[in-house]
């Protein structure tokens, strides 16, 4: 195995594009090294992107936030501005693994690992976040939900690297939240999860909503019917029940070692309902 530590995106992209054999990017390494240990993969090349300038920074821009691909989730949790604007995204990022894992793991890595159960992804999808993807020839910006195409699979071409994750600026009366279900209180992979992002009008009526579910389908699901269930409501009990039912109905889960189909369907609705309530309060609703 070769280890490379490029100092620019161009160099990194070129290394990845030209690599013969199996090449992997290394940011936090909290998925990559586990897979190497288990013998699932034997990389020929590992490209460490942490020395690339700017990649370890959270930038506040005119349009919102740009989170570099090498920013650790712990650093996201320490960024007061980001936390205030996108509490749901930050709490989702901070749920990945232990404190030890938090010091290293990144949301870009969480996204590219392409697990349906990735904690940060439903929150990012609900938030309408975008990924800036740099390739050998051009840069493109795509919606988060377009990045993963199935378990372990992404739409990234050879040589393409996520450079940053973009989050919009937050207007007033908006709020997001993320909840996941795990059997323990920490250290587990989500059995089912839900991210909700709401915008209210001056009267507390839901104007816009995005609801995303994790671990209930091959990729994170954006649920338009859930949006329809609550837009126009003040998130009363009936709206919440409609939301839960829409989420349960949208699930296409499997039975596996972490949970059953029935459990995931039912709890997806429960979590969406609970997350919506938190997001609503954060948006100033009562």
């Amino acid at each position, binding site marked *: *195995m*070769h*280890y490379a*530590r490029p100092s620019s995106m161009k160099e990194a992209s070129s290394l990845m594009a030209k690599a013969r054999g199996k090449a992997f990017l*290394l940011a*936090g*390494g*909290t998925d990559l*090294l*586990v897979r*190497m*240990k*288990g013998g699932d993969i034997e*990389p020929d090349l*590992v490209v*460490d992107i*942490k020395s690339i300038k700017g990649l370890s920074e959270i930038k506040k821009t005119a349009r919102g936030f740009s989170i570099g691909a090498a920013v*650790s989730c*712990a650093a996201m949790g320490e960024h007061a501005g980001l936390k205030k604007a996108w509490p749901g995204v930050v709490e989702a990022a901070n749920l990945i*693994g*232990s*404190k*030890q*894992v938090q*010091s*290293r793991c990144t949301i870009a890595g969480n996204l590219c690992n392409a697990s349906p159960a990735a904690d940060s992804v439903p929150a990012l999808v609900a938030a309408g976040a975008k990924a800036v993807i740099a390739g050998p020839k051009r840069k493109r910006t795509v919606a988060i939900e377009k990045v993963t195409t199935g378990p372990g699979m992404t739409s990234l071409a050879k040589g393409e690297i996520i450079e940053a994750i973009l989050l919009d600026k937050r207007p007033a009366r908006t709020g997001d939240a993320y909840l996941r279900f795990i059997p323990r*209180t*920490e*250290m587990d992979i989500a059995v089912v999860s839900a991210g909700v992002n709401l915008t209210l009008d001056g009267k507390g009526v839901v104007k816009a909503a995005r609801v995303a579910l994790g671990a209930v389908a091959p990729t994170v699901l954006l649920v338009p019917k859930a949006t329809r269930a609550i837009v126009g409501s003040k998130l009363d009990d009936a709206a919440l029940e409609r939301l839960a039912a829409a989420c349960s109905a949208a699930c296409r889960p499997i039975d596996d070692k972490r949970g059953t189909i029935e459990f995931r369907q039912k709890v997806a609705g429960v979590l969406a309902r609970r997350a919506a309530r938190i997001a609503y309060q954060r948006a100033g609703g009562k």
Partner: protein
Amino acid sequence: MPGIAVTTTINGDEVEFICPAEETLLDVLRDRLGLTGAKEGCGTGDCGACSVIVDDRLVCACLMLGAEAQGRRIETIEGMAHGEKLHPLQTKFLEHAALQCGICTPGFLMAAKDLLAKNPNPTEEEIRFGLAGNLCRCTGYDKIVRAVQDAARVMKGA
């Protein structure tokens, strides 16, 4: 395949080593540098027995490549005491019998040190969640939490 030459700082001392690209920091510490205080309980970041502090952040040495240590500042259990003087956490772990078999102890001490550095006045719940990345199978955690609470008290007074 040629190894990678790495210069790093461990417990305040500059250290040089050469390791294959795929070797983890844990294997470097234990097998190349003789620092066996960090333990391998799982090799997959699930038990925390290999916890070390890298540039003021707590990490699992099993989830970091040795090559990544270049230019970093690493603290391990071997550097926790100052000469003969134990760190208050070490003293409190002994006084509270916060260890039975002791295999998880170095990892817990590093995690607790990191926790108190970032939050000198943690609640019981903050301690429990802060140490959730470290598995202990002997104690049921009760005495570990009490030792950390007591150490926090002592360190604030010092």
